[in-house]
């Protein structure tokens, strides 16, 4: 089943008089259960592509279909709704809400989805356990290491049981050991739950986990290969 389909997608950023063509007619299809890595040098357009798949941004031209829904004409709130139920995010910086505890950060998407307290509690504990953070649920982000924060971010991304998790350079700010740990957790969740994962990265440690590697250069897909995943 196809969770994301992009057809001839272009994204042009205009800063003053200068136009930057971040994506230049890209077509891509992501199947359910894939563990895909978008790779390429800085400025190749991988983050832009990830943001379009995540409905955080809209293409200048072309079509983006997520979970069978055409997204081009959706307004801000409709896009928020689509994200809420379908997509989870893990960002490069450990994007947790600093005033909330690890537990509350994971709980937030469940709250936004209107889950009742009993359901929320069960799900949060389950997820913290899955990322090995159940001991630290009551800690605030500033009391956690980078690796721990990223694990909480993964748990949060998984909270609403999304079809797809998008991760932008998830290991960029982690040391080798923590980076491997986070990747192991994500790979395990991919296998166990069948959740689709898409990464934008140039970290070889991430690439080696991927079972599909899409290479971008200057806003174009130059290579799309099935890899032998670890």
């Amino acid at each position, binding site marked *: 089943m196809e969770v994301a389909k992009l057809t001839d997608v272009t994204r042009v950023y205009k800063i003053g008089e200068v136009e930057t063509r971040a994506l230049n007619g890209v077509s891509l299809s992501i199947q359910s259960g894939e563990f895909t890595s978008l790779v390429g040098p800085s400025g190749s357009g991988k983050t832009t592509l990830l943001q379009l798949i995540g409905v*955080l*941004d809209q293409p200048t031209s072309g079509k983006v279909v997520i979970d069978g829904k055409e997204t081009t004409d959706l307004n*801000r709130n409709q896009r*928020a*709704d689509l*994200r809420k139920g379908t997509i989870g995010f893990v*960002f490069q910086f450990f*994007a947790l809400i600093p005033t909330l505890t690890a537990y509350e950060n994971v709980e937030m998407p469940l709250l936004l989805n209107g889950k009742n307290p009993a359901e929320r509690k069960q799900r949060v504990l389950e997820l913290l356990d899955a990322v090995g953070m159940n001991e630290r649920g009551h800690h605030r982000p500033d009391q956690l290491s980078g690796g721990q924060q990223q694990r909480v971010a993964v748990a949060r991304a998984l909270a609403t049981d999304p079809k797809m998790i998008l991760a932008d350079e998830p290991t960029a700010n982690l040391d080798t050991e923590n980076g491997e740990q986070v990747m192991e957790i994500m790979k395990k969740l991919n296998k166990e739950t069948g959740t689709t994962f898409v990464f934008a990265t140039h970290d070889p440690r991430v690439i080696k986990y991927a079972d599909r590697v899409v290479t971008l250069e200057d806003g174009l897909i130059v290579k799309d290969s099935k890899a032998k995943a670890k």
Partner: protein
Amino acid sequence: MNYFKMAYRNLGRHRRRSALSALALGLGTALLMFVAAFFEGEMRGSMETTLRLNTGHLQISNAEYDPDKLSVAWEYLIENPLQSAAQIEALEQVKSATPRLIASGIVSVRDESAGVQIMGIDPASAANDPYRTMVSGEFITADDRTGILIGLPLAESLNLKVGDSLNLLVNTAEGDVDEQQFTIRGIFTTGTSAYDKGIVFLPLAKAQAFSGAENRASYIFVMLNDREQADAVAAAIQGQNLRIRTWTEMNQLLVLVNDFSNAYLTFINLIVLGVTATVIVNTLLMSVFERTREIGILSAIGMKGRQIIALFLVEATLLGAAGITFGGLLGWSVSAYFAKVGVFFGDLGISGEMLMEDRIYPILTLESAINLIVTAFIITILASLYPARMASRMEPVEALHGSN
């Protein structure tokens, strides 16, 4: 985890900044509350003082009488005033009614002199109670033929004390001038220097004889149990060749100022609260800018625009509630304190038909307190709409690329 808890923690990130914003709002509210109480006290005090000392609730005079001229020519006066006053006082709504004869005169002592109003009063009448607070000496009696009462400021300016003599010049009924020596029996104070410095009291009979008015008075001064009944009582005592003026007719300026004071206060409220609102806007805007990325994250995980607005509005609500509660308590305490001790202004030099006591006692009404609190709250919420909307309109991508 709800909006209140989140908002509370967000405010806690910059405790000092949040506290200062709440403080600004609080001080604004407290100041306005005190101003409202002060105005209310001043207006009520001024109205009461003016009615009590100057005009009464009703004045019954000859139809030809002109209060500005102070003439004691017979054609301007009413006859048998004691008898008429007694009849009017018999009316159920009337608290007291007393004749008063007013003439213009000059007090002179050695080589100093001062222009005064000479008021002949019936010393026994309760309507004269406001003059009975004596700094020294005694109140005059009805049969005193050489005694006079003067006010404290006049005594001070002419350096007079009880037992001293003064010369009093009067314009008589025939248009002449007469002069006589009087002995000061007492020095009074009404608490309104502007009034006390320009008036002297004689017993009615003496004033009538001295000015040549004989058995006549300028008007009958009437105090009612309830001033709202002035029109009804006026209608009941219509008589031939009489003019009856109610307190609203006699104090048009004061009534007007009173009516306008509410509009004036609202205007001041809006200005001061507008200024404090900019502090709230500023605090929340800073918060929006600092939390750009966070707003992006919330948006990325599915928080909708209106939920982001709600989050910021709740922060403003908490900030407002804290500030306004503090301000309300402070404003109330300060008003209550000054309601006891008064605010001393002295003689502001205001004369004419509007009198003010030297000390103003603020009165904080429940209505004005509630009005102010509700207005402050509404303005705070309105002010926070702009930063809140701004936060809600951030594109998640741009927000995620934001600072930090």
